[in-house]
C-alpha cells in the first residue's frame, strides 16, 4: 500500500471502491471429485465484490461451500471456472512455484488455532516469518502482541502454553504481520467460548480496519456477523442467494433461506421459545 492510500478521504474511498473493488469474484465455481466417479460442485457460479476497508460477512450452514470459497480466494484451491482478481491481478492457485508477491496481500486466519500454529517454534519466530513479508515495517513483534492484548513475554513461549482464545489471537497477529489488504477469517471464532467469540470478532474487525485492510468473515454464527460486518452474503448449496448491507439482511431479508437462517437463532430473552 502506498502512503497516499493510508489517508484517503471518505468520499475518495467510496468513489474508488465503487470503481474497482479490491477483490472481485466473477462466476467462480469449484468441483471436487467424488469416490467412484462423479463430481461435487462445492461452489457454483459465485460472483462477489469486496470493497476497500469493508467487512463482508459470509454465512450459511455446514457444507454450503463457505470454506471452499475462502480457499479459492487464498489460492489454496483451483477454481473449475470463473475468475478471481485481487487488486487488479488475477488470483492463481498455489502450485509448486513461489507465490506471487502481490498475492501476499491476502492472508487467512483458520478455524482451529491448535492446528494452524507450529507447536515446535516460539511465537516470536512465527511472527517474524510473517513480518518479513511486509516491506512497510508497520508492525513489530511487540506491537503485534500488544494489539491483540497479549503480554510481551508471550513471544518467548510456545503455542501449547496458551489457551484456545489466546492462540487464536496469535494467529490473528500472524496474519496481520504480513500487512494484508484482505484478511480472510474462516470460522475464526467457532472453536472459542461464546463469551470470547464476540470479543475476538470485534478485535479482528478493529485491527483489520485500523490497518487499512478489508475482511471476509466466515461464520455460521449470525449474531456475531451482525455485530461486525458491513455487508452480509448468504450462501446456500454453493450459491450466493443474497448479498446486502447487514441491517437490510436483518430487517428485510429477501430470500426465504435467509429468513430461515435468521429464525433459527435462539433469542436471549428468557422466554423459553425454541426457534424455528
Amino acid at each position, binding site marked *: 500500500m502506498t502512503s497516499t492510500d493510508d489517508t484517503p478521504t471518505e468520499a475518495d474511498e467510496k468513489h474508488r471502491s465503487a470503481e474497482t473493488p479490491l477483490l472481485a469474484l466473477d462466476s467462480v465455481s469449484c468441483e471436487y471429485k467424488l469416490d467412484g466417479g462423479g463430481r461435487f460442485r462445492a461452489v457454483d457460479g459465485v460472483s462477489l465484490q469486496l470493497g476497500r476497508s469493508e467487512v463482508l460477512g459470509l454465512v450459511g450452514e455446514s457444507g454450503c461451500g463457505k470454506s471452499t470459497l475462502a480457499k479459492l480466494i487464498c489460492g489454496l484451491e483451483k477454481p473449475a471456472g470463473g475468475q478471481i482478481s485481487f487488486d487488479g491481478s488475477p488470483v492463481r492457485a498455489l502450485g509448486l512455484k513461489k507465490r506471487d508477491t502481490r498475492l501476499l496481500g491476502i492472508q487467512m486466519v483458520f478455524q482451529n488455532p491448535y492446528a494452524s500454529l507450529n507447536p515446535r517454534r516460539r511465537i516470536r519466530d512465527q511472527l517474524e516469518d510473517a513480518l518479513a513479508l511486509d516491506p512497510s515495517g508497520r508492525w513489530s513483534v511487540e506491537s503485534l502482541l500488544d494489539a491483540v492484548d497479549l503480554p510481551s513475554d508471550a513471544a518467548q513461549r510456545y503455542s501449547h502454553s496458551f489457551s484456545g482464545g489466546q492462540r487464536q489471537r496469535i494467529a490473528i497477529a500472524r496474519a496481520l504481520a504480513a500487512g494484508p489488504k484482505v484478511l480472510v477469517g474462516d470460522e475464526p471464532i467457532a472453536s472459542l*467460548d461464546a463469551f470470547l467469540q464476540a470479543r475476538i470478532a470485534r478485535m479482528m474487525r478493529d485491527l483489520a480496519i485500523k490497518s487499512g485492510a478489508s475482511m471476509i468473515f466466515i461464520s455460521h454464527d449470525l449474531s456475531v456477523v451482525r455485530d461486525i460486518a458491513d455487508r452480509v452474503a448468504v450462501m446456500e448449496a454453493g450459491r450466493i442467494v443474497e448479498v446486502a448491507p447487514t441491517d437490510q439482511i436483518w430487517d428485510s431479508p429477501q430470500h426465504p433461506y435467509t429468513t430461515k437462517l435468521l429464525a433459527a437463532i435462539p*433469542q436471549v430473552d428468557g422466554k423459553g421459545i425454541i426457534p424455528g
Partner: protein
Amino acid sequence: MSMISINGLNLSVTTGKTTAHILKDVSFDLEAGRITGVAGASGSGKTQTGLAIMGLSPAGAELSGSIDFDGVELVGMPAKQHNRLRGVQLSMVFQDPASAFHPMLTVGDQITDHLRHHQKMPKKKALAKAVDILGRTKVPHPDEAIHKYPHQFSGGQLQRIAFASAIICDPKVLIADEPTTALDVTVQAGILRLLRELCDDLDLAVLLVTHDFGVLSSVADTIVVMQNGVVVETGDRETVITAPEHEYTRSLIESLPGAEVAR
C-alpha cells in the same frame, strides 16, 4: 422432592505436586421433568459437575460433599455400584457426536450395548427396541439406520442417535454436555426441540451444560451460573436472563452479540 440434590460439592484434582480446586461448595438441585441449565466460561467447572454425577471424575480427583440421587448417595459410592447406575438410570450425551461413537461398530450394536448388558435383553429384542427409540428421536428410516455406521450420518443425525442411546434404558437423569455446540443453528433448533420433548414426555431430570445463553433461553427451566468452580447465581430462566443479580452473569449476557434484545 428433587431427583438429584447436590450439596456442598467440592472437587480437587491432584497431578504431581499441584492440587487444583475445580469445584468449590457447589449446591443445586435437578427436578424430574425440568431442564436445569448450567452456564459458565470454559474452565468454570460446569462439565466436571456433570461428570461427578456420572462418577466419571478424572484420575486423582477427590470428591467431598454430597450428591443425593433419589435417596442414594453418589459421592464415595464404590465404582462397581456406580457402574450399575451409569447408562441405566444416569445417562449422558456428549458434545461431539462424531467422537462419541465407535467408528467400526454399527449404530444398532452401540445403542443396544448397555441395554443388553444391564437388562440382559436378547439381541433381537434389543434391536427392535432400538428401532423404536430411533423413531422416537426422529432419526430417518430407523430400521435401516441400525445397520449403518456412524460415518454414514450427519452431525445432527448422530446427535439424535446419541440421545436415543441415552434414553434406551429409561433413565431418570440425563446429562447433556454442550449437545448443540458442534452443530449448525438450523440443526440446533431441532435438537433443542427433541431435548424438550424427551424431558417432558419421559419426566427426565435434565442437566444441560452449555456456554450459550441463547440455548438456555430457549429450553432451560432453571439456570445455574458458574464461575471458577463456584455457583454465583441460581434462578428461574426469565429472572436470570432479564434481571441477573450477579455482576458476572450480567457481564456474560452483555458480552453476547445479540443481547440487546434482552435489555
